[in-house]
């Protein structure tokens, strides 16, 4: 079996400019934030990001000029930390395309990719201006008269997840909420996992706890505190101070300096 365990540098090299990347986790929770930081600091360009609800990971890549489009339901930090200003500014200045979806239609698009079809019919969206803005088309039930919005398949080149535990084969155990990670793992052409711990444990003792099947995973990187500055359930909470300092940065140089000061290995 080929070696799936990679260093952070090797993992960063796997991701090509202009790729479509699905990022796991949700908001500041168990998102692959350190890997996202590493991509931004490595100067990746033209990334198309897929997320249901994103915060620091997306905003950081926007801040570093790595993003051409964001396809998501929500990008922001909720009440405590406010708007995702780098994302927002990028969109307002026309550098980043905001391909807003409803979170459900991100899921529907991923489900279409999983099932190898090019679209998925969904209930919902009626009356939303997103229909016109995003060009969502309808599809008619060939057996009846009902029409549904059709959501085009979303196929990430890479799905990038952060999990608590992975084994050498890429099997992953997620503690706490899964968010959309299992769906993203199935939809991605390739899957990169960062893990708090790569363990020697035999997951076959309780295979029902394995959230991500190893045979779908291409690369595994051990990154303790890999969801920093976000949370990782049962491991650590968020670092609000860091998020605030990041949000106060005025240039990519400020950001590089902040990362260095905090001695984050990216």
């Amino acid at each position, binding site marked *: 079996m080929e070696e799936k365990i990679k260093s952070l540098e090797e993992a960063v090299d796997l991701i090509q400019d202009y790729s479509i990347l699905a990022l796991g986790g*949700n*908001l*500041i*929770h*168990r998102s692959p934030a350190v890997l996202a930081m590493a991509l931004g600091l490595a100067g990746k360009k033209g990334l198309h990001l897929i997320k*249901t*609800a994103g915060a620091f990971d997306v905003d950081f890549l926007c801040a570093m000029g790595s993003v051409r489009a964001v396809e*998501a*339901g*929500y*990008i*922001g930090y*909720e*009440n*405590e930390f406010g*708007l*995702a200003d780098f*994302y*927002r500014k990028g*969109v*307002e200045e*026309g550098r980043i*395309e*905001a391909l*807003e979806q*409803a*979170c*459900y*239609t991100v*899921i529907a698009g991923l*489900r279409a990719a999983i099932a190898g079809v090019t679209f998925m019919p*969904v*209930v*919902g*969206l*009626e*009356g*939303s*201006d*997103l229909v016109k*803005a995003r060009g969502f088309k309808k599809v008619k039930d060939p057996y009846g008269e009902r029409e549904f919005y059709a959501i085009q398949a979303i196929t990430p080149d890479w799905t990038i997840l952060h999990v608590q535990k992975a084994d050498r084969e890429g099997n992953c155990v997620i503690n*706490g*909420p*899964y*968010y*959309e990670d*299992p*769906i993203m793992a199935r939809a991605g052409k390739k899957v990169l996992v960062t893990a708090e711990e790569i363990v020697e444990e035999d997951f076959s003792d309780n295979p029902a706890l394995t959230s991500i099947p190893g045979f779908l995973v291409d690369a595994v990187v051990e990154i303790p505190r890999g969801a920093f500055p976000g*949370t990782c*359930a*049962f491991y650590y909470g*968020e670092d609000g101070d860091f998020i605030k300092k990041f949000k106060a940065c005025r240039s990519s140089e400020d950001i590089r300096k902040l990362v260095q000061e905090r001695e984050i290995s990216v």
Partner: protein
Amino acid sequence: MKEYGPAEMMIVAIARMLNDGERVFHGVASPIPMLAILVAQRLYSPGLTYINITGGINARPEVLPKSTDAPELIHKSKVIFPLADIFDLSARGELDTAFLSGAQIDSRGNINSSVIGDFSRPKVRLPGGAGSAALVPTAKRVIVWRAKHDPRIFVENCDFITARGNVKEVVTPLGIFEKIFGRLELKSIFSYSSLAEIREKTGFRVSEPFGEEIGEPTKEEMEVLKELDPERVRDIEF
């Protein structure tokens, strides 16, 4: 008794609107609905099914998180029911109540969480509607809440309609609107506010309230609130 403010008033007003046995959902950035649901379960609707975006079902968080998508919100849940399943539940007509909010809320109960200005090159890019475009038309009842009440939020027409549909009530720090014949009509004014204040702070025509006044938070409600939320996470929306 002036130990309560708009946060407490909104929470208990919403808690009293929920019914026993119904399935109620909140998503991200929703401390007030989170607390309202927890208060309702404790005092009025023990058989309510509390569903949140983390996949928690009837979670009993030990410590309330500021982020309503945080892993604490599956604590004591006996199953994980991920967001994809929750959307499906709503799509097939089995979600009773969903809580959503918006940057703008208009006279017809539409919400805008997307943009001010042009969609592709907006003046202001807002966070996005999260699940609202899918949930507002499919949940049986949508309760919209917003912790600020001013005329730039409560507008005649949204700049952009992110979601339209089954909005029934809109709860603000000043009172409650209900959608009647397609328009938001003022139902109740909270005791510390007035029709004049609401008219002043609302960008669309407001008639006399058609419903009864909502009683102030009771001692029991305040005690439960204090117990559930000693750190006053509820204030974060204000």
